[in-house]
């Protein structure tokens, strides 16, 4: 009977006697007899830890992708996570604490999150960042909620350069919020804003305009245009920014963003089949009372010592209840702490270096790949920083299968991205032959060259 329960038979007897009960079952006397589960759960009996570890190890061993050299990205990146970050973020004080409701014994988490908020704010250029949201998609959904509340308008113009899964989430949640999501097509890698029909009235005018920077195909959008559209409609400008690319690019705030969201996985979180990741969220001071999720602020204790505490609590669901503008309670605090540690490790120059190395590898691979017959660009000449979309002569899924045999996760098939969420925005042929390829700072020249050689073979009919 493996478990983690401390009760000895004697303890149980003593405790039952104290309660005046003769049997453990009597503890459940409030549960109507008819509802009680007869015969126990339909689950196998417990197994000792080593057996379970063996089982989980076998499952882990069945993931062939784990052994492949990773050129896949699309919002989840294979970046360096050093031992020091794993060691510190794994400290049990951080791992096994709850939300810092008692600040006197939670200064560790609170200060780490305060530092995280500062770093996220510096990345985006905006003055306020929250303590995290679930992931990039949820951060975007919350940003749209904030924007519609701020503008009082339900129409949301979303560039199709925003990650297809994030857009899928937006659509899902619009089922509740009633937001009208208008997706703006990409043409040659850039949002074709002029293709959106001119709003016929206040109801159709966008309350929020959303763009990705770089977009999910790796292209740099013209954010000045987006700012002008937002200004024209007094809409909130939301930028979904890649926080690693931020090491090379002008900050979204410089471009005039009101809200900046992003996926923070790149800062210390392994790929992990998609989670736990980290939703980055920052905004202007004017919006702080609409900020979703938790916010840590600096203050003092009774003796005047510096102290940290979650603040502007009145916004949160446990206090505002049905008037709350966000329902988030548990977020991704440990990931925020991890990101703070990873960004502390990278520092000013390390982040810039990572971004630069990504761009270099991407350039190198792209230049060489486009020399392969059977590979053409999918996004024309639009600048590419960190991720690139290629058109493969054979279907991208086939390329990925073939390249796996050579030891590579070749990238992400556009079809899988746009199809999975029920998107359909990209045209079918482009999707089937579109391959999204990523090069991070971890990829060596040898790996890239071997990749190119394998690609050359893989795209042959």
């Amino acid at each position, binding site marked *: 009977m*493996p478990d983690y329960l*401390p009760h000895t038979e004697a303890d149980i007897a003593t405790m039952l006697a104290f*309660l005046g009960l003769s049997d453990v079952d009597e*503890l*459940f006397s409030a*549960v109507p007899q008819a509802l*009680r589960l007869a015969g126990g*759960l339909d*689950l196998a009996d417990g197994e*000792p830890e080593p057996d379970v*570890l063996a089982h989980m*190890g076998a499952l*882990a*061993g069945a993931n062939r992708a*784990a052994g492949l050299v990773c050129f896949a990205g699309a919002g989840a990146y294979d970046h360096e996570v050093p031992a*020091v970050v*794993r060691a*510190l973020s794994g400290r*049990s*004080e951080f*791992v096994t604490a*709850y*939300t810092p*409701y008692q*600040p*006197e*014994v939670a200064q*560790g*988490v609170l*200060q780490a*999150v305060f530092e995280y908020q*500062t770093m996220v704010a*510096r990345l985006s250029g905006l003055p306020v960042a929250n303590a995290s949201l679930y992931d990039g998609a*949820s951060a975007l959904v919350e940003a749209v909620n904030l924007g519609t509340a701020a503008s009082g308008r339900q129409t949301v113009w979303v560039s199709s350069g925003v990650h297809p899964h994030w857009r899928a*989430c937006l659509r*899902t*949640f619009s*089922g*509740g919020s009633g937001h009208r999501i208008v997706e703006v097509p990409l043409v040659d890698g850039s949002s074709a804003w002029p293709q959106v029909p001119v709003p016929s009235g206040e109801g159709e005018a966008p309350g929020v305009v959303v763009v990705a920077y770089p977009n999910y195909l790796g292209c740099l959008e013209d954010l000045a245009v987006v700012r002008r559209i937002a200004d024209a409609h007094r809409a909130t400008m939301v930028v979904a920014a890649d926080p690693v690319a931020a090491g090379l690019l002008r900050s979204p705030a410089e471009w005039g963003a009101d809200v900046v969201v992003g996926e923070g996985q790149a800062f210390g979180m392994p790929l*992990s089949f998609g*989670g736990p990741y980290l939703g980055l969220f920052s905004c202007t001071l004017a919006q702080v009372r609409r900020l979703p999720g938790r916010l840590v602020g*600096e203050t003092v*204790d009774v003796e005047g*010592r510096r102290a940290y*505490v979650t603040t502007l609590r009145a916004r949160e669901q*446990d206090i505002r209840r049905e008037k*709350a503008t966000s*329902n988030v309670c*548990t*977020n*991704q*605090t*440990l990931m925020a*702490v991890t990101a703070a540690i990873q960004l*502390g490790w*990278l*520092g*000013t120059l390390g982040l810039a270096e990572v971004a*630069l190395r990504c761009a270099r590898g991407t350039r190198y691979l792209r230049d060489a790949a486009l020399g392969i017959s059977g590979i053409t660009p999918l996004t024309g000449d639009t600048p590419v920083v960190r991720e690139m979309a290629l058109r493969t002569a054979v279907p991208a899924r086939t390329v990925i299968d073939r390249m796996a045999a050579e030891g590579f996760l070749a990238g992400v098939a556009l079809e899988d991205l746009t199809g999975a969420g029920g998107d359909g925005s990209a045209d079918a042929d482009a999707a089937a032959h579109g391959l999204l390829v990523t090069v991070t700072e971890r*990829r060596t020249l040898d790996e890239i060259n071997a990749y190119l050689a394998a690609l050359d073979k893989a795209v042959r009919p």
Partner: protein
Amino acid sequence: MGRAEEPTLFELSEPGRHSWQLRTTGVPAWSADELVPDAHRRREPVPLAEVSERDLVAHFTRLSHRQFSVDLGAYPLGSCTMKYNPKVCDTVASLPGLTDVHPAAPARMSQGWLSLLVELEEALCAVTGMAAATFQPAAGAAGELTGLLLMRAYHDARDDRRRRVIIPDSAHGTNPASVRIAGYEVTTVPSDGRGCVDMAALRSVLDRDVAGIMLTNPNTLGLFEDGIEEIAAAVHGVGGLLYYDGANLNAILGVVRPGDMGFDIVHLNLHKTFATPHGGGGPGAGPVAVAEHLVDFLPGPRPVRLVHGAQERAASNGTGATAYGWAMPPRSIGRVHSWHGNALVLARALAYIRVHGGDGLRRVSERAVLNANWLRVRLSSVYDVPFDRPCMHEVVLAAFTLRRRYGVRALDVAKRLLEEGFHAPTVYFPLVVDEALMVEPTETESLQTLEALADAFERIAAEASEPAGVEAAHAAPRTTPVGRVDEARAARMLVPTFDARAHVGMQGDREQ
């Protein structure tokens, strides 16, 4: 140790220090201006901290010494189920075969993960009595919202537009907030004198505009809603659905299942019931399990066991073994997560479930309920017990007598407990109880620990009858890394980042 103020990383920073070390790649070293068009190129690097690895380690290690955690002691925080988190699950969550898998890797290359998810889904269905589940929701509140969208999709599919969702007044704040964000209106029903849903009040608000009801059972008073069959019949009677907030599932594992109680939709907090650690506020995982009639609406794509046939043979690469793939439910509400949910949290939960098995999970609930009742009886003579009958896995005490007599509030009791080396219970929740102290010992605390906790509770109450004790209660905590924190000032003079300190005129350091 842990009591000295720790400067921020930014104050430890000195330009030119570094920690980072990156792989040697040999990739040509183009400069930024060769790579990024001028208009887009950042001019100055993002200013972060610049510290040595040594200082990074010292900083975060010292911060960790200013943080309480389950691993340091009892954490009887009601509703949060702060049980011991087995270390073996940390090992599971760091298996390279799990951590190094890209979420967009084709199913053929991620059979282990898919199989893990399907196995966990089956286990959660066994525990809840439901038909299928989604793992996308990243926490309980996300599960609630997902569940409410499922409710909406279900009614929509029957062309049945409904506007209201019923919530008891003892509900957790996420419930009404989720209802609102799902586009529904909240109808609150009061609790009756026994701490359960007031049946008459419920009936009075039930009509065909009610999309459903959200309940947790046991409820947030730690009491089992013994009228649940009646509630279910009534709600179903008007065509509404029953939503189960799984926050309190820890009380009833193997005893009674939400599905058997009549619930249609259940969200689970894996970070509570299944011991995945809370991480200082996350990550969690809030899978939503549903009854048969809602399966088609689940978010997708979903991991599925492939039926024997062509698809399977393809996925298993001709080996013939049972294989797994992805499927989009036919009337799916769509995605609710960037990928597939908090996968590593899910892996932890499966390991926990396998160690316990069906028999062990039932023991978990038995002991959780035993512990809570022991504390209830032990403390009922010194604290108010607003609803003094057998509780489930948590007990709501109250300090209204202490407050009335001596001016010692629930908050003071909480802060005194911090001094005694325990975490505080949840205070001022549920809202229906004045000066509430919501105590959830969990099953992993031993009788000795319960005794020490009860002793501390009693000592605090006893001291309150003396002036020095009252003073001590108001001054508490004094042995913690900081004393009581000025929350009003934090909101008034908002300093949400280190850079904002300048605006409100804070000093780099307090006076030496």
